[in-house]
């Protein structure tokens, strides 16, 4: 299959009634565990219907939202067709399976799991081939020598075509492969592969190597919104609620709350705190007690700096959530839905 027929990805969902928000989540394996953990961190519990085989469920505490449990590939397809509003899927699948991702979906936030690279890998024995330029050179004379073009085994047909075109490689054939792609060169059914790899161990075990500039995409699981779905008021409200919890958890995880008491403060000090540590005042100071918010990585340095400026005690704490009236995730989605 060569990706999506254009008709499917360009027609909006056919939901005529104002429906609930549909959140598509992976239905099995490591990806499901990670997705559930991600939603759980944000205080959102996905509950599958009776038995593990039921593919529908609910999100506890969020009315007007339904969960659908599907394969990552099916999640991507439904987002593209507008049959789900939000979904968890890999960026690799979004780029491969949707003809024009920018018009169909919005990648809201990377989720920090399911990391893998889509790479171009050739036999290790090709000691003369280290870069895409080398590969272009080999492809250019391969037909003359062998009477056929280079064969590339992959399930990433569209991704491969785009990347090879960028590197001016035209004379090759794609051999579609949906499993055990890395075995294709040894089996003689292809000359090289484009495949997804996490550690490169499988490639090495099959005597393959990634080209120096052959990383096509550094992919990970993303929270993805469909622009093709029908966004009823109920669906919007449910999405706003879910995204604000996700954003609140994300901000809480990435920042630390710093508490201290300072006798003497100046405008200059605040400005330096801002510019050097990206620290901001979280509350109006009350009798010399200050509460700052600072990126997690800079909390120790900022604390040292406060001590150097007269603080006797500085405490750094983690928060569960930081809710804000302005929710960047929802704002971005709302802007795209409004046609931005």
């Amino acid at each position, binding site marked *: *299959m*060569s990706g999506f027929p*254009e008709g499917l990805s360009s027609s909006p969902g056919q939901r005529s009634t104002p429906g609930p928000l549909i959140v598509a989540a992976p239905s099995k394996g490591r990806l499901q565990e990670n997705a559930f953990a991600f939603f759980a961190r944000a205080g959102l519990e996905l509950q599958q219907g009776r038995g593990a085989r039921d593919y529908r469920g609910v999100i506890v505490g969020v009315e007007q939202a339904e969960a659908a449990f599907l394969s990552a590939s099916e999640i991507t397809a439904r987002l593209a067709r507008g049959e789900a509003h939000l979904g968890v899927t890999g960026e690799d699948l979004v780029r491969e399976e949707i003809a024009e991702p920018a018009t169909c979906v919005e990648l809201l936030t990377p989720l920090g799991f399911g990391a893998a690279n889509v790479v171009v890998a*050739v*036999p290790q*024995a*090709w*000691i*003369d081939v*280290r*870069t895409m*330029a*080398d590969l*272009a*050179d*080999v492809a*250019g*004379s*391969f037909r003359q*020598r*062998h*009477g*056929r*073009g*280079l*064969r*590339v085994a992959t399930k990433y*047909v569209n991704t491969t*075509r785009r990347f*090879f*075109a960028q590197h*001016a490689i*035209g*004379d*090759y*054939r*794609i051999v*579609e492969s949906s499993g055990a792609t890395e075995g294709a*060169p*040894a089996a*003689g059914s*292809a*000359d*090289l592969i484009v495949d997804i790899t996490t550690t490169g161990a499988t490639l090495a075990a099959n*005597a393959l190597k990634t080209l*120096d500039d052959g990383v096509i995409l550094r992919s990970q699981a993303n929270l993805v919104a469909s622009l093709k779905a029908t966004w009823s008021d109920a669906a919007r409200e449910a999405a706003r609620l879910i995204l604000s919890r996700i954003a609140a958890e994300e901000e809480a995880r990435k920042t630390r709350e710093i508490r201290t008491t300072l006798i003497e403060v100046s405008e200059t000090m605040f400005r330096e705190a801002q510019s050097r540590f990206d620290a901001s005042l979280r509350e109006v100071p009350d009798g010399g007690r200050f509460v700052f918010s600072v990126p997690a990585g800079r909390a120790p340095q900022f604390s040292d700096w406060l001590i150097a400026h007269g603080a006797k005690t500085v405490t750094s704490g983690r928060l569960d959530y930081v809710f804000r009236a302005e929710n960047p995730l929802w704002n971005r989605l709302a802007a795209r839905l409004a046609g931005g």
Partner: protein
Amino acid sequence: LWDVTQARDKDRARDQERLDAALAQFAAAGFTRREPALLQPAGLFLDRLGEDFRGRLYLTGEGGGADLCLRPEYTIPISLDYLASPMAGQPADIAYGGPIFRAGSGESLQTGLESFGRDDRAAADAEILGVALDAAKAAGAPRFALRLGDASLVKAFLDRLDLAPAWRRRIDTGLARGAPLARVLEPSARQNGGSGAGVLAALEKVDATGARKLVEDLLSIAGISTVGGRSAGEIAERFLEQAALEDGAGVGADKRKLIEAFFAIEAAPDAASAALRGLGQEAGVELGAALDEFDTRSGFMAARGLALEDMTFSTRFPHAIDYYSGFMFEARPVSRRAEQGAALSGGRYDALLKTLGAVGEIPAVGAAIFVDRLGGAA
């Protein structure tokens, strides 16, 4: 909505009339009509036109497969049809006309002609262009701007330069894709990242055959004979070739000047020919038979009454479809912008039929008319 439907029907009827007029012209010139099947094996086109072309195909197949496609063009199906006929290998003049299907532009009408098996290449080239232009005119085409190219002339020139194989390949593929010359000739770091330098130094005392044998032996000790379709010998050869390319060296100043001068030639055929002869004498790169053939063809074109002075020959005529092996041309109504695509195009493709199963090379030249682009400014 009714108006839209009516307008579309009118366009269709007009294009059909144009197609019929062109076909009548082909028949009068002695070309026999053939119509290959609408449903074609997709691999046929992907193999010859490149994987890039997959995006232009309407793919289908049994049980949701993708091994078939709607006919995206005529030359390859007509060639197969000819090879399967009792005329295979004999001279045959064939015309065609009907719908083609390309993703992005949907269904459109194409007509054209192919001439197989004629050894008098220059005359056949001139005839195909002449008959195609007559047919376009009969179909109501406005005044055309015509551009010409010649793949065999470019090949003859590059052969004379005796370039390092890596540079030759780079220029060939770069030009075919229409890349800017300056970028193609840019001196680059050794493609192999310098990893071969040490090996090469170690091998310096050994002759070329010995060095290749040594690398081959090393690969065979590692248990590698053929991996991913490339033999140990082939890998060894390219490895040494890359190692020998001097880091950051270009093609050499003299050759670069010559290449730049050659690829700057763009003029009416007779003026271009004079410039090519001048360049040949000055630099000692005589183009010999290829340039003689060029002049002979110009003579035949003039004899047919084609206005050579209105044509532009360019050494940079891109041939992204790499089965073209000689004369190439494209024409567009003068009122149409360049990026809208040619209304008429074609050329010589002597090597194609062999790749489709012919025993040896069979001379072939053809032209295609995009009927819906005949109307001037769209």
